[in-house]
């Protein structure tokens, strides 16, 4: 443990996240007998995320991907283990100071209240608000508007500024949420399924924006996705999770391997290379379908 700490301090810059022996479960520990180690959502996880890399998190449903993101943003607290954010103990940091460094884009938000796109993006400036006696309600200052405007330009939603959020398409909403996250001026961007429910074109939009932002601002990006091909194309490293543990982490070429994926997902997969990028590409084999057809034919 001390060896690892000294190594990380020599290799500057500091890692964005350093996770050691992390264990977490949702229910309270009180109700369990001591020594019971079942139902961990995250179980003894070790992980280091370097500054400025794009890391994709993949794994089957219930493998703890979303919980990992929540732990890393201190939305939930772990029962065991430590998380360090740029060298600082996450548990000791205030929510506000975390939110100035880490932006989290959740999977689902409520669009019931008639907020405008500009309202939404400006919410990203909340960690920087300065309210006082003369500014009780915490109005944004000019610099907040400038940052929000820049963020909206980066995700191409400027023309939507005065539209109501409920009237937008799913792709536009996702870009607005991305703008809101960028308005936080974070060092780390965390995205939970940013391309879920989007058509191909909008998936491409979101990914291109992510790449552009990453290149321009040297942001560390952590994204959870069910789309392995997308992760393969856009991520520097891929983290494969199963039952709350790290199965492996590495470059797409190393990790996206039929043996790994079969072990994790429990089904046969084909991996070939993408004709343009040369990166690994995943598809489901045809025999599964044949087997199903054969099985139904036997009935």
């Amino acid at each position, binding site marked *: 443990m001390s060896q690892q700490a000294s190594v990380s301090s020599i290799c500057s810059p500091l890692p964005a996240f350093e996770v050691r022996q992390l264990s977490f479960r949702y229910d309270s520990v009180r109700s369990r007998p001591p020594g019971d180690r079942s139902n961990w959502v995250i179980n003894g996880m070790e992980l280091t995320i370097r500054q400025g890399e794009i890391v994709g998190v993949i794994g089957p449903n219930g493998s703890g991907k979303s919980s990992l993101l929540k732990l890393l943003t201190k939305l939930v607290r772990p029962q065991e283990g430590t998380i360090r954010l740029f060298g600082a103990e996450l548990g000791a940091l205030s929510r506000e100071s975390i939110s100035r460094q880490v932006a989290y884009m959740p999977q689902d938000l409520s669009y019931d209240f*008639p*907020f405008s796109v500009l309202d939404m993006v400006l919410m*990203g400036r909340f*960690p920087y608000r300065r309210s006082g006696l003369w500014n009780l309600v915490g*109005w944004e200052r000019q610099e907040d508007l400038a940052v929000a*405007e*820049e963020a909206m330009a980066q995700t191409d939603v*400027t023309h939507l500024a005065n539209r109501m959020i409920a009237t937008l398409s799913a792709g536009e909403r996702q870009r607005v949420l991305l703008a809101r996250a960028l308005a936080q*001026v974070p060092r780390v961007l965390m995205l939970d399924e940013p391309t879920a429910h989007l058509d191909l074109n909008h998936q491409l939009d979101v990914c291109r924006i992510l790449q552009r932002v990453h290149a321009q601002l040297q942001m560390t990006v952590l994204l959870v996705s069910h789309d392995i091909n997308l992760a393969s194309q856009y991520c520097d490293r891929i983290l494969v999770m199963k039952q709350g543990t790290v199965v492996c982490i590495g470059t797409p070429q190393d990790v996206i391997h039929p043996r790994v994926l079969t072990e994790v997902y429990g089904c046969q997969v084909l991996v070939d290379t993408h004709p343009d990028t040369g990166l690994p590409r995943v598809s489901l084999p045809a025999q599964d379908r044949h087997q199903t057809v054969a099985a139904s034919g036997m009935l």
Partner: protein
Amino acid sequence: MIVHPSPSQTSMSDPPPTAPPVPMRMYEGMASWQALRARRWYAVIGVMMLLTCGAIVFCLQFGAHALTMAEVWSALTFSTAGREDVARVIIWDIRFPRILMGLFVGASLAITGAALQALVRNPLADPYVLGISSGAALGATIGLALGLGAIVGGLGLPLFAFIGGGVSIVLVYGIASSQGQLPMHQLLLAGVIVNAVCSALMMFATSILNPASLYRVVLWLMGTLSAPSIPALIGIGACLLIAIVLLLRESQALNLLAVGEDAACSLGVDSDRVQRTVFLVSAVLTGAVVSVSGMIGFVGMVVPHVVRILCGADHRLLLPVSALGGGILLMVADTVARTIVAPAEIPVGVITALIGGPFFIYLLMTRKYRFFA
């Protein structure tokens, strides 16, 4: 107002030091946004305050004894010292306290309604959803049943109501936060349950009351602003002022919570603290209001919706505008209630619903309102 140079011009102000190290691009939209936000807030609040003052003066004219505008004005400015004492007594001793009470009660109901709708993320929420009102009603009924309504110089009834409201606040809060946190669905359920239990107990109490006391309970339940005592007026005014300050401080946090709790927390909102604050402030204010004026319906639920249609969902604007709008609605409704069948009176809740309902329906049908669309 700063005029932003067009991109072709070279004189561009440096971005502030905390802005990201990327070149700032200016374009036409931004100037109007800035104008739209802080300035719009002052403009809208200013207009609403003027409207409120106008409504107060307007309402002073009407009543069982109609006064002319000139009489009202001279009585208000004390320019007729010694003469026309009738008008002055009517205005200062009778109408002004009552109108002020209407303003305070309407403002309290509307601002708590707006805050609670955001807190529990439910468009049907109103100040009475937390079960505080039933507790207060039960307290008042018990006070009347015991024949203690007239103690402490007529303040007995509000006092009992406030105690009842306080007990139900503790109950609702205790039930909802029994597992450490304060989940909003549990808060709603706890409110509904306490409401039901208190209503049942109140029905039992009314069934054994004598007819005279029963009539007072029924009148009180319908809600009335008549003959407010000065201590009650000061008490409500103080509660309202503190509540407005506390709620406005949390208004941006309420915006974030209305969109999503996890996302709000990741932006630095201490959701637990904000939710507890908003609940307690709303509950105490509701308890105080119900104690002095009974249950006046409609204002707390509909005024926030009307304001959202007209001004948007930003709680920094929504909360104060709702307060002033609710105050105006209740003042005007009460004036109608005490005028049209004078010297008798109609319960003011009837008028709020009859004025507010059609207006709300008109807005719903003509504007694109997308709350829970």
